């Protein structure tokens, strides 16, 4: 009995590691049209965004989450930080970026997302 419990526990740990750290989620392409990132219920939707390298782009954030955690979005790699008013779309202009990954997150890093530039 204990053996099964222990194996289940270790499997659970492995699952946590895989799900949160190893798994690479698919990115949403921000090509044509306006991409709106909805900030709601503690997360960014979509949170993984693909952008083209070497050209400026725009992100639109619509904050529906009243928690103060959601009120700011930071992109440290690009020196960007922006206040997000509630229930409004905020536009963030991104400069032409080199290929690479840029994280965006709230002040406390609990809401997280990545921009994959390639």
């Amino acid at each position, binding site marked *: 009995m*204990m053996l099964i*419990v*222990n194996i289940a*526990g270790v499997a*659970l*740990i492995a699952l*946590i*590691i895989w*799900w*949160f*750290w190893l*798994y690479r*989620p698919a990115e949403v392409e921000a090509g044509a049209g306006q991409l709106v990132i909805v900030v*709601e*219920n*503690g*997360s*960014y*939707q979509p*949170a*993984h965004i693909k952008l083209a390298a070497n*050209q*400026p782009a*725009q992100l639109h954030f619509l904050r529906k989450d*009243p*928690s*103060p*955690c959601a*009120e*700011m979005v*930071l992109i*440290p790699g690009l*020196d960007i*930080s922006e*206040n997000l*008013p*509630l*229930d409004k779309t905020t*536009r963030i*202009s991104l*400069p032409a970026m080199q290929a690479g990954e840029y994280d965006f997150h709230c*002040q*406390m*890093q*609990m*809401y*997280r997302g990545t921009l994959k530039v390639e």
Partner: protein
Amino acid sequence: MNTASTHEHAAGSQTLMIEGAGCASCVGKIEGALKSVPGVDSAEMNFADRSVLVTGRVDAASLIAAVENAGYGATASEAGSDEDAMAEKEEADKAYYGRLMLNMKMALGLGLPLMVYSLFGGAMTVTTGAEQLAWLAVGVLTLGVMVFSGKHFYVGAWQSFKNHSANMDTLIALGTGTAWVYSMVVVLLPAFLPEMARHVYFEATAMIIGLINLGLALELKARGRTSEAIKRLIGLRPKTARVVLGDRERDIPIERVMSGDVVRVRPGEKIPVDGQVVDGQSTVDESMLTGEPMPVQKRAGDEVVAGTINKSGTVLFRATRVGKDTALARIIQMVKQAQNSKPPIGRLADVIAGVFVPTVMIIAVVSALIWLNFGPEPTLAFAIVSATTVLIIACPCALGLATPMSVMVGVGKAAEAGVLIRNGQALQTASKLTAMILDKTGTITLGAPKVTDIVLVSRLGEDEVLQMAASLESGSEHPLAMAITESAAERGLQAEKVEEFNAVAGHGVQGKVGGKALLFGNEKLMKDRGIDYARYLGAAKRLAEEAKTPMFFAVDGFLAAVIAVADPVKEDSLAAIRRLQKANIRVVMLTGDNHATAKAVAAKVGIREFFAEVLPEHKAEKVAELQAQGELVGMTGDGINDAPALAMADVGFAIGTGTDVAIESADVTLMRGSLHGLADAIAVSKATLRNIKQNLFGAFIYNVAGIPIAAGVLYPFFGILLSPVIAGAAMAFSSLTVVSNANRLRLFKAQEH
């Protein structure tokens, strides 16, 4: 789009924000489209921020239509939106606070009686059928609380789980969820569990949800106070301006004031936009922006800035900068930007916060396994309690909040003292500086030198010498040159045309006036040109020892006069430099002056070390020299000819005059001319860094000590196992503590005037 900006404007300018312009070639197309609109005088696009400045008599709607016809999108820039945004935010926060408090009341309404019952010995176990029924009812009620008061935790946890990320919601949802599910199993299927393990934890679920909602509510309140400084700045802007239109005057909304408009400000009113006084005189209180307590005299030609208060007289001024271009708007923008930037000290916390939640989940599983394998009976109950407690006590928020909250308050506090800190990096480095180089002219001294002595050498008289020198210097922008030309103007001497003018950098100038070859500069210049000046070295030295700058003036190859210019030391330089020295900072003066003058000025302000006779282009080298000695060097200058030195320094401080915030290259801008601003900047940054360290230390210790205790490390030794409710309370108040500690910075006093 706000309606004010769509009204037709009299001749003036307006800004449009452009959407969909992806390449530089769009600029021409958009500008062309706008210029073809009747009434548009000019259209200039700033590609970097996607804005177009349009001047002319035209309304915003037709401009937007023109841009849209060209295939792009446009919106009118909303000038007055800061206040609206602030008001909306307060409204939203208030509503959210109410909701959190309601959540708290509902959850504690159930949790508290249950907890009291258990504390007074009530059986929290399921043994009889009646107990089973009663607890089932409680379980359903708890589910109600979970849905009503804790819905945001569970939905948030699920949303981030789907995104392969985890946050505070995940921990709370897992912790409270585990406790509830286990309790429900006890209630519904008691037979599956050993008798000792049939314990319910509904009170924990309800209490934790209640306490965390309370913590969030209090944190929301405390957070509001951290942005007081920026609120105060935004509140400085008046809502209306009295604009003179022909022979009428009208109060119009501030958003509609255009650059070029003439605005009247009466005593006691706020200056609505930046501008230049055209008529009247008054004193203006600029302390809210510069921290300078003395009101400033304003008369025709002087600049006035939005947000300052007109004290004594009525003035008419022409608006030069409006909306987002005013000094106030730029200060607000800069402070906001800096408040959101992080000093490097927060990086470790960020890295930890990034992997925190999954790590805690793993610890919870490990802890449960250890209890199951090695714990006393009932192992299952202990395992559940320890895992739940670990999940609940862990607080990534305190870690994540530690740095930004302090930076927010610290940068705001600095702004109140007239100190604009560019970013978190500058804030942190400023707190650690070991040496400070002060440029002499304009930093230690007023930067307004005056002619004090003229020692005549030849037959030429004072006026002749001064007239020739002033003619020669009329093309130069050097502060010493200004002293000569002003002094000549005071005596009513007319400058003549100068020919073959040549500035010998750092040494002086030469040129021809009225056919005479003139040479004006320092000892080195005379020596290089073979002028005999030896007999007057003594006089020059005596002047230098009086902290004056002696300059030699030669006409047609012969010395004609020694002219001394002195730049008075600012009256509070000595006291401010003392403050720096008291903070264990090695203060070094830097000047282009000769050694003797430099020594005299340094002595006046209590500086022991100085670099004299430094050419402007060599200032940066002196910074590097100190850096090579292992010092962390700050450099303070007026930002005009010392930009390379400011950039070379670990932190560059640009000392402004009044509200001139044009000096955007510096890490720190001191809006006040006084060096006290510099000492304030250092003091604020030290206080902020200390506060950040306290917060980080607290948050680290809290988690490092809290998580193992929650897991039960104390149990084998003392028999202590934390209750999940205590963990919930600790977690709820840990982030509140961080925010409150950051708020203590608000009590920081900049300078004892």
